[in-house]
């Protein structure tokens, strides 16, 4: 049987299972939004997440490099539009991350 002091020294359960890439709230927000839709374009993601173009572009690039999101470029009214979608790897990573967050919330006993 574990003592209360053990859990305090180890910290909340699930912390070690958190995905380091998804601990940035902008990236987590983008992944959560993408999980609910087939595709979202860059401008919409930027407006919903209230991020600057440069910051969001950098965060999405990291998710792309990890193959969590895919991107498709199109032209609309002669303007480039990037459509982002969640990959199967990204979906699995997001689920694991959310499960870990849930475990943390449960272990907090609030």
């Amino acid at each position: 049987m574990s003592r209360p002091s053990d859990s305090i020294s180890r910290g909340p359960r699930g912390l070690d299972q958190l995905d380091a890439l998804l601990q940035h709230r902008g990236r987590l927000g983008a992944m959560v939004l993408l999980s609910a839709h087939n595709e979202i374009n860059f401008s919409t993601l930027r407006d919903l997440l209230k991020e600057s173009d440069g910051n969001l572009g950098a965060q999405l690039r990291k998710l792309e490099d990890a193959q969590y999101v895919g991107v498709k470029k199109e032209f609309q009214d002669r303007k480039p539009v990037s459509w982002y979608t969640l990959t199967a790897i990204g979906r699995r990573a997001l689920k694991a991350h959310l499960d870990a967050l849930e475990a943390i919330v449960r272990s907090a006993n609030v």
Partner: protein
Amino acid sequence: MTDTHQLQQDLHYVREVVSNADRGRRRPVAIYWLWALYVLIGYPLKDFAPRYSGLFFLMGWPVCFVATVYLAHRFKKTLGVRPIRDRSKLFWLGGALLILFCVAAMSAAIPALRGQFIGQVAVVIVGIFYFLGGVHYDRSFLWLGPLLCVCGLLVGFVPHYGWTALGIVFALGLIVPTLFTPRPPELSAETTPG
């Protein structure tokens, strides 16, 4: 080590982002106005030229539906999101055909329902259909649906211009929510790296 307070703040942020995405959902305004015009012409015809109202509803519906498909296609291009599954066409077309079939079958099977009554029954069924549309697509239909059901029942007790009033109520129910729809964002050039 990750700070749990930071995690809490991040989750709060994500929750806000998701609820903002739901609140900011736009409506295809042109489609709502098109159908508002359709009912605003069709129902008053029942009071002023009853002979032509059935013909108008029957002939106008396919025209409006084709126009709706075209407008919906244009609207979707302006949206920044593409849904995983889009069953709206099946819902609206299938539902409309079912209503048409139900009304025709009831009119044929129950002679007492012919004339004024079948029109009232049709409005009640349309009201139920709009309520279901509210559950699946647009929250504003959650109140328009029951309102149409009540109007459909009451219109039989109104001696003059009851159908005209119903047409106005129906049209307003479609137009008013569009006045509170967020405006489409300007398509801006992306400055993503690479």
